[in-house]
């Protein structure tokens, strides 16, 4: 497993009107690791995701991927640079087949255009065959090979999640960013998902994982980063993070009252950890 730095964010900030969704967040991801991003509801996890993938522009911050700085200003350029993501609320191309969904993932690494398609040049045919082959390979990888020609919307929930991961993997990303992949899954599905993510890591990919399910994150991740109210409050190995008093405070609340908050803010700190693991939608979600 490589020890080199794959992804680095320094000082990422984002403000939505009166809400400082992210303030000065730093994150470094070593290549070949699974990094978990956790935090109570409304902590800014999804905003962070949207910022690094270019879905919402950051107010400030320095971003670096695979040794090169990148500017997350346009979503499609981020994908090209090598970050592929999935969505908290599944966003598949519902009326296209599973295979076609993954084939779209190959778009960014292929080149044939309008004239190639119309004239059916040999280059086009070659590339098309290659796209199909690779897409099928990724479908098999996530275990959906048998459902290649099923429309995405006819797939079961767990299969849709896996199809989304296959589609993201097909873009040959440096970093695979999964936004709450286990949300709404039952125990079996979660175990399968865990196996899949482990397999992806073992095949040398780097994964950034937002997850509410703390058990899943602690069991799977090499490094865990905790956000609370847009600030990074802890980062380290799962054991370190679990023992961190700030994290305990964020999830369980402390005897001494924290900073005063607006009454409308989600009152996650006073809730037990189990409540944070439920799949209620996040306040800061903009995806």
């Amino acid at each position, binding site marked *: 497993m490589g020890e080199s730095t794959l992804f680095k964010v320094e000082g990422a900030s984002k403000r939505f009107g009166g809400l400082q969704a992210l303030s000065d967040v730093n994150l470094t991801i070593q290549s070949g690791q699974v990094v978990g991003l956790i935090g109570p509801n409304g902590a800014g996890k999804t905003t962070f995701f949207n910022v690094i993938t270019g879905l919402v522009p950051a107010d400030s911050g320095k971003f670096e991927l695979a040794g090169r700085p990148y500017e997350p200003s346009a979503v499609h350029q981020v994908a090209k640079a090598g970050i592929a993501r999935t969505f908290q609320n599944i966003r598949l191309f519902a009326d*296209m087949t599973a295979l076609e969904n993954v084939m779209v993932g190959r778009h960014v690494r292929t080149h044939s255009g309008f004239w190639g398609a119309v004239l059916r040049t040999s280059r086009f045919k070659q590339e098309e065959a290659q796209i199909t082959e690779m897409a099928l390979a990724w479908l098999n990888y996530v275990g959906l090979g048998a459902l290649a020609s099923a429309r995405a919307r006819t797939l079961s929930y767990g299969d849709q999640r896996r199809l989304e991961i296959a589609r993201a993997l097909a873009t040959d990303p440096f970093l695979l960013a999964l936004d709450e992949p286990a949300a709404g899954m039952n125990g079996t599905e979660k175990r399968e998902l865990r196996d899949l993510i482990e397999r992806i890591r073992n095949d040398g990919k780097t994964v950034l994982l937002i997850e509410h399910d703390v058990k899943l994150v602690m069991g799977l991740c090499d490094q865990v980063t905790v956000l609370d109210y847009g600030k990074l409050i802890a980062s380290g190995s799962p054991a370190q993070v679990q023992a961190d008093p700030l994290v305990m405070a964020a999830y369980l609340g402390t005897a001494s009252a924290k900073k005063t908050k607006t009454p409308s803010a989600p009152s996650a700190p006073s809730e037990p950890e189990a409540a944070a693991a439920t799949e209620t939608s996040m306040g800061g979600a903009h995806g």
Partner: protein
Amino acid sequence: MTPSTPFLKRCGRPFLLVLLGLVLLLLPFVLQSFGNAWVRMADNCLLYVILALGLNIVVGYAGLLDLGFVAFYAVGAYLFALLSSPQLTDNFDALAAAFPNGLHAAWWWVVPLAALLAALAGALLGAPTLKLRGDYLAIVTLGFGEIVRIFMNNLDQPYNLTNGPKGIGQIDGLEIGSLSLAKTTQWGPLEIHSVTLYYFVFLALALLAVVVGSRLQNSRVGRAWMAIREDEIAAKAMGLNTRNLKLLAFATAASFGGVAGALFAAFQGFVSPESFSLMESVMIVAMVVLGGIGHIPGVILGAVLLTALPEVLRYVSTSLPALTGGRLDASILRQLLIALAIIGVMLWRPRGLWPAPEHGKAMANKGAVNG
């Protein structure tokens, strides 16, 4: 071919295609014996097939509702009209001096030019509408269609460019080599009328439209368009440059419209703004939706039905005014029946008369058994 094509379909395909080809080739000769009006109807059907296939790219593949498609039809028609009629030389002395015999531009470069110009107009319309979707896009495109028509209607001042509402006449017909398509031709014992000659030209271009449309559909670009239709944000996240892809969709669709327009001008010998009303745009959208949005055979069916049905009804319903004492005449009945047909189709076949096959369901069930 995708691996999912059913076995039976693959087997029977060559045979069906040959049969269809023979029918299409012989059709005008059969129709000719009933009168030229019927062949003319077939010609119109083919023109609308080209238009509907073009609109299908932007509405069916890319999912962008375009209610001003007829504007591109108008661009093609007026380009051909201006370059192949005395309109410009009559009104501009400098041009008349430069071309003492009239412009009479050759169709083989005017038609591609019409495609190009329409594509440019398509990109021009696309550019400001990139961020719009659904109803909002429909309104803007509708406005664009009207703007083009109003321009054609009013560009007779200060310089008489389009001759305003009076339209442009005396447009040259198509000429292939020494064969003028505007006259009846004797071919052995066979008498081929002008409308029949046009039929074959239109058929060839309609086939070209089918080929281009289906090749685009099964390509990297086509899949990207459909991805935008399904979920634009996810498409962007997959690295698709949605701006360029949308512009490409608009331009490609518009070029189909431009070609159809140029053919229309040559065929009719006369164009006026009246032919490019909002109603035309609506009818083309109706063809695509009624037939089966995004599915080429369905779109062709929709175009043929909606073009032919009114004409057929015109003949069928001639006895009606007498029956109702003149209160119901053919044109009213036509509109009534077409409206009823559209409502009926939308009620009972909301995905269109001939929608894309739903092979997804069967496969999903099979997968459920296996897994």
